[in-house]
């Protein structure tokens, strides 16, 4: 009993330490986003804003108005929403086919998807950027096709895991009830996949929302800037950095994804572990 309490104490202390480590950069950025530009320096980074150094929402206003934050927010939203929607729709259908139609080709397809998860992005990025230019994928409205390709591996892998735990009889019952294959998918399978949909959606959304490298390589930086690209843009030229506006932008960029995560977090664990144990 006492041993258990000591053990639990250590675990809790460890977890508190970890959460402090995770939270500290965010707190650091949050504090400094309310300071005036001249008060942001390495030596005073952890100081709370004083009457002299408190900037109010000036940095946020500058980030939103002067630096076209809303335009970048629009591009980031468009890219994230279209990509996640495409990934969820196409990969769930693909996983349904792989798990329900038994053939050696489908097995091979499944392993190819799984393999795509371990291919480093750097290996394909240069050929990708020229292909994207050639196929007119170099704008926020078409880039989802590239994200679909890169996000499919993990999504198919997770959907297949969950799909195997759905009894085939449910789909057969829907066929007997009069469903066409598409109706079976959209009216029966799709709603049952909800927990995995949410977890795959959040994981993919977090990655796409925060992605810097792919849009930088593919998009025309002068025309289209996503939020991570905009934040980098604050560094400006000749080493000048607009620290206050940059901090404010980072906080603003974190908010939507934190919100999405908080809403859907209970489904993440459900989705990730689904199919692992017999329900």
């Amino acid at each position, binding site marked *: 009993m006492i041993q258990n309490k000591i053990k639990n104490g250590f675990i809790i202390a460890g977890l508190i330490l970890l959460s402090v480590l995770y939270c500290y950069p965010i707190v650091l950025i949050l504090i400094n986003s309310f300071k005036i530009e001249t008060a942001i320096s390495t030596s005073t980074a952890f100081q709370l804003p004083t009457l002299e150094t408190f900037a109010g929402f000036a940095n946020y206003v500058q980030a939103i108005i002067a630096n076209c934050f809303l335009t970048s927010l629009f591009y980031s939203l468009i890219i994230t929403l279209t990509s996640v929607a495409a990934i969820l729709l196409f990969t769930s259908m693909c996983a349904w086919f792989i798990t329900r139609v038994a053939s050696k080709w489908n097995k091979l397809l499944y392993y190819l998807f799984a393999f795509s998860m371990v291919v480093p992005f750097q290996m394909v990025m240069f050929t990708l950027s020229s292909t994207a230019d050639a196929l007119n994928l170099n704008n926020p409205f078409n880039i989802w096709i590239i994200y679909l390709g890169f996000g499919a591996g993990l999504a198919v892998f997770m959907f297949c895991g969950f799909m195997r735990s759905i009894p085939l009889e449910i789909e057969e019952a829907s066929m007997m009830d009069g*469903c066409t294959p598409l109706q079976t998918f959209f009216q029966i399978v799709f709603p*049952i996949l909800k927990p995995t949909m949410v977890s795959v959606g959040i994981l993919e959304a977090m990655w796409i929302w925060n992605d810097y490298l792919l849009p930088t390589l593919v998009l025309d930086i002068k025309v289209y800037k996503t939020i991570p690209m905009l934040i980098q843009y604050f560094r400006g030229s000749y080493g000048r950095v607009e620290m206050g506006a940059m901090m404010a932008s980072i906080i603003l960029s974190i908010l939507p994804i934190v919100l999405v995560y908080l809403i859907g977090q209970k489904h993440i664990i459900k989705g990730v572990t689904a199919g692992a144990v017999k329900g």
Partner: protein
Amino acid sequence: MAKVKLEHIKKIYPNGFEAVKDFSLDIEDEEFVIFVGPSGCGKTTTLRMIAGLEQLSEGELWIDEKRMNDVEPRDRDIAMVFQSYALYPHMSVYDNMAFALKLKHIDKKIIEEAVMHAADILNLKELLKRKPSQLSGGQRQRVAMGRAIVRNPKVFLMDEPLSNLDAKLRVQMRSEIYKLHQRLKATIIYVTHDQTEAMTLGTRIVVMDKGEIMQQDTPMNLYHRPQNCFVAGFIGSPQMNFIETLCMIDENQVYLMHQGQSFEVSSYLKEKLIKGNYHEKEVILGIRPEDLKIQAVSQNSIQGKIIIKELLGYETSVRMAFYEKEITAMVSSEEVIHMDHELKLYLDMNHVHLFDAQTKQAIAHAVDADLDVKGRNN
């Protein structure tokens, strides 16, 4: 409701395994047909072929004079109750039952009437808003039945619908299904491995083994007139005892010999054995445990040591060693029986069955003697 006709149906899987071999069956309108047999005998595969969930490798399937081989399951107008119920987990009980009708774009009022009618029959009215996960096994089973009833299909298919229920609920639901058949007058094809379900529910039972029909008949005939050793052993619990004997015919006297012990058969069986020329041939003598009696008669009796006794309430199942075999008898629980003691059992020769040891096919059943006499008099 409809007639179902299966003509020389076969199911051969790509690996060459023949799950169903030359299966032919005519199912009449309003019949309650049971497919029964051990695991892997092909009964569920046959049912799935009727449903359209499995392709036929050979043969033809007709429902109401319409060839169904290439018709999609959704167009066959068949409802199926699955072993696991297969309810849609994200839908309420009402939506589960209404789903098929909604797909047909039927008027909402008519759907509601149909669902309420089925819910009324199955006592589901108070559960209509619940999700399947909030229901007990028995309730889920009733919802699965309700989903089938709402559609008013030509044929009901049921794949071991009671096997996931506990023993008490199973008995209760069994009588519910029986009442449902009486009420709906539907054509039902029911798969089970439980012979009690088969005997109590079916108007006709199809006994299957290794993909073949071993016998199809009424429950009474299957019990009293099994056509072969398999059916004789499969139908009836505890199963029939088989004693391998040698038939000796000597000037119109017929004896069945086993380890030096002889059994004298009735005149009807005697006639059948003489006609079939079974002299010095091996004949299997089958006798049900309930036809073995504890009686002080020396003729046609067997003696052995009791090895197991199981009190079942009204009766006691006694297993005794008889040479290298084990013989089971059902005796009154009032009989005083001691383990390891010798027991003498009398074989009621008016209820024995004789089988050809080579073909395992029935030669004659002692119970047919009366019919034979009546037939001759007529």
